[in-house]
């Protein structure tokens, strides 16, 4: 399975209403140390969902990029709608959508 299969996939609530699309995927390096390597395994932790713009990979919300003011304001606003939804709260069956298990997402805004 490829990560790109998750990206741009629509996320819907249990009642079928759309929450937006997957714009990025949050990984946490807390798995076991990989055999033969030095890196701990990367666990797929959550998907970043937003309704708006697709190009949210500039680091204004999730990275440490702070300037310049013009871009921070523009992209901060575009990315503001984005929030993380834990993969544990999602059902990923063969269908085209990721479905929320219940309609009470404990998802929270990015870091």
């Amino acid at each position, binding site marked *: 399975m490829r990560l790109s299969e998750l990206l741009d996939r629509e996320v819907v609530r249990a009642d079928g209403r759309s929450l937006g699309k997957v714009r990025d995927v949050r990984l946490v*390096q807390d*798995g076991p140390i990989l055999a033969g390597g*030095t890196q701990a*395994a990367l666990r797929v932790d959550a998907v970043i969902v937003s309704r708006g713009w697709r190009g949210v990979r500039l680091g204004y919300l999730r990275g440490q990029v702070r300037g310049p003011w013009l871009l921070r304001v523009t992209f901060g606003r575009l990315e503001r709608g984005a929030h993380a939804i834990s993969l544990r709260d999602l059902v990923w069956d063969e269908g085209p959508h990721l479905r929320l298990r219940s309609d009470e997402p404990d998802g929270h805004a990015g870091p």
Partner: protein
Amino acid sequence: MTGRVLYAGLELLDHQLRDREGRLCGNVDDLEIERSPDTGELYVTAFVAGPGALLQRMGRRRLGGWIERSNRLVNDPERDRNLIPLSLASRLGPNIDLAVDAEDLATSDTERWVRDHLIGHLPGNRHRAPE
């Protein structure tokens, strides 16, 4: 949850891969994920590097899939050489450093072909311009 947090799209996808000598050997065109039978969680197991994977990611599923399959047929039907196991990564930064030799990766296949059939026949191809 205490480990380092990485955003795949921001910090891994499309980043440069370098081998142990610092040679450039492809970009991270996609990531392979697998569900662990033990914990039931999804883990990133490998970087995917190759034009087939990139095309698939860009929505050219059929063309990309065909390139990936033909690649596998020519080389080794048993395993997908476009996959570079995550365990080979020695550093995940703006560049991703791998503890391998670039020549052993599938991304070097076209490099080798161009070298053996074209550039390698031109005089002086072995000499770095004198400093």
